[in-house]
């Protein structure tokens, strides 16, 4: 970026003067070991800690973290603009749903030339497929969000409940809770969280996008999608769960007062629950999401990768940083101090379990590492994201907020979203078969 150059330029002036003064003495090579400075754009929690830890342990590269607005709130368009204007940073955080869009818009460099292909077997197959697009790897997975269920262990014990392992049991449990404890519901079905909606559909075996034919196929209303949507519609209609925006005032009040007993989420959510309900330490447990009849499965809800934009000044050094973030126990340790996101790299998960329980008493005792590990291993590998999920999510939030809670609301929201998505992709010149 210019500012860095200008500072350097300013620094050069006194250097030149010193050089003139010392011309006769000729001190050789003092400036040669100056470290390469990388700019790292992200908004995810723990980014500053990663940069600090990396800088403390590396001499030849300095990482400057710059906080950008969250991706869908403007961070991604900022990255696009910067690359187009030739002002690309060296490292950017990109969430998995946006990677295909970044690739089709040619914002990112393929990382294959930097020897990342040999890292593939360190990540769950499905996670690697999220970053390996069209035969090239475009980012290294940093963290992932395999879906889990947080539940109030104390209230479950008090009410004589066990964590449901199937969705059928989940419904029975919800009926018991509603019948025996008026005002209490088993969970809240978030109406404003498109990524969670996708994660739950993903777990149910849905597959919203399919590029296998060489064209984008969009299908949010297939059998698996309809089953998942119909299930939740009946729970909402029968008053067995509430349908409210996730982590908005009413939902937070429910959690604090113990009138909503579970949160369907991902490991990173634990840190949010902790901040909204700090008094409930020691009263939460984590379990895998209840299963559909086919057996245990998970979806993914959140997480991001680190990538190198086209036009980055120092791609080699950027890769060194990214590789460190994605493969080093040190990096996991640094992030565990501030959040509870689950590392994508399977060789680091044991280390993460120890680190997170040591760093965060709220999480210790939840059994989160076991639940997250089990979930991460069973994420459905077939899922793909479409080529413009920033707009896709925004539209899905609009539809979900408008429709969920009404009869057949989820199905209507998904159908409307699908139609609009197909239209939009066609307008942008993609071929979308019926």
């Amino acid at each position, binding site marked *: 970026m210019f500012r860095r150059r200008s500072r350097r330029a300013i620094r050069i002036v006194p250097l030149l003067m010193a050089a003139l003064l010392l011309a006769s003495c000729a001190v050789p090579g003092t400036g040669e070991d100056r470290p390469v400075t990388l700019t790292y754009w992200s908004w995810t929690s723990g980014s500053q800690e990663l940069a600090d830890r990396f800088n403390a342990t590396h001499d030849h590269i300095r990482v400057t973290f710059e906080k950008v607005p969250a991706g869908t709130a403007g961070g991604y368009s900022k990255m696009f603009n910067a690359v187009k204007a030739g002002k690309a940073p060296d490292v950017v955080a990109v969430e998995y749903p946006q990677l295909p869009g970044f690739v089709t818009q040619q914002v990112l460099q393929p990382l294959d030339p930097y020897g990342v292909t040999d890292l593939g077997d360190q990540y769950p197959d499905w996670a690697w497929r999220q970053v390996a697009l069209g035969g090239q790897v475009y980012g290294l997975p940093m963290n992932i969000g395999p879906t889990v269920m947080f539940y109030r262990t104390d209230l479950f014990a008090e009410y004589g409940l066990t964590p449901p392992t199937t969705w059928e049991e989940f419904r029975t449990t919800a009926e018991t809770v509603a019948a025996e404890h008026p005002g209490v519901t088993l969970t809240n079905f978030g109406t404003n969280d498109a990524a969670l909606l996708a994660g739950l559909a993903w777990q149910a075996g849905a597959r919203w996008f399919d590029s296998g034919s060489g064209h984008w196929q969009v299908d949010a209303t297939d059998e698996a999608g309809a089953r998942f949507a119909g299930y939740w519609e009946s729970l909402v209609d029968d008053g067995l769960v509430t349908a409210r925006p996730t982590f908005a005032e009413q939902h937070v009040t429910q959690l604090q007062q113990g009138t909503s007993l579970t949160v369907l989420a991902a490991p990173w959510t634990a840190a949010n629950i902790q901040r*909204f309900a700090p008094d409930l330490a020691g009263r939460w447990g984590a379990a895998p999401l209840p299963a559909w009849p086919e057996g245990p499965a998970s979806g993914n809800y959140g997480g991001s990768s680190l990538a190198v934009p086209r036009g980055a000044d120092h791609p080699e050094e950027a890769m060194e940083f990214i590789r460190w973030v994605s493969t080093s126990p040190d990096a996991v340790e640094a992030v565990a101090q501030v959040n509870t996101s689950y590392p994508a790299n399977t060789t680091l998960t044991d280390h993460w379990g120890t680190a997170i329980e040591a760093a965060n008493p709220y999480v210790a005792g939840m059994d989160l590492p076991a639940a997250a590990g089990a979930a991460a291993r069973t994420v459905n590998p077939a899922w793909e994201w479409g080529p413009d999920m920033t707009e896709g999510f925004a539209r899905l939030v609009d539809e979900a907020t408008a429709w969920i809670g009404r009869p057949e609301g989820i199905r209507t929201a998904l159908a409307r979203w699908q139609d609009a998505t197909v239209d939009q992709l066609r307008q942008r010149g993609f071929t979308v078969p019926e």
Partner: protein
Amino acid sequence: MTTPRTTGNRWTGRATATTLVAIAALYTLMPLIWLLFGVTKTLPELYASNGFSPSAGFHVLGNIADLFRQDDGIFARWILNTAVYALGGAAAATLLSVAAGYAFDKFDFRGKGKWYALVIAGVLVPNTAIVVPLYLLMSNFQLTDTMWSVLIPVMVNPFGVYLARAYSSGAIPGELLEAARLDGAGELRTFFQVGLRLMAPGALTIFLIQFIGIWNNFFLPLVMITDNDLFTLGQGLFTWNSAVGQNPDYTRMVVVGSAVATLPLLALFIPLQRRWRAGMAEGSLK
């Protein structure tokens, strides 16, 4: 016969006006009151309690301390940056506007009408529309992500030129300038020592308008600046607010930060309010 009716009309008219003003005042003040209550609260309270009830404890000092500690204390830096943008930009814009307005009013030069039409056209173009072209322009000069990329565009305010011209025509008698010239003052000296002084109240109005505009300017810095150390308050708070999904505690920081960010404006406005009103009225009458 007519008297009672007039009184009655006046009464209903006054009641209507009072009610409307009361509604407007309530509408304007509610968010501020919410904000003041919010400053006293912890994060869980912000979400779970009534917005217009105080906190169970008193967390103002702790919240403010946390605000200035968050992200290595960058909030203080944002205040400073915003002050630099707003003071520097408003001062430069005021001087340029007053000089241009004075020139348009007191001098005759070729194409005056067309130049003035250009200025008025500038008033009509929305600021937002020119931000992206400005970004590309700044990018050509290698100025994006520097303070100049925000300062240079806000140094010009066509509306200020318009106000200054109106003010100049009312506040500076042409005879006075003639007298100054006859006494041997050059044009620059006449402007700075006679024109500028007489236009001071009008200049203050332009300064305040521009100051508030820059203080609240959001889109321009959002596009131009990525370096967190150069952020404005609005941009910084927006960036924090966008990250609440990552860390909900930013909600508290945004609430407390927004409250703190209004203080400098209050500090500037309350003492200057009387003069400003006078300046506005004078400018509009002439």
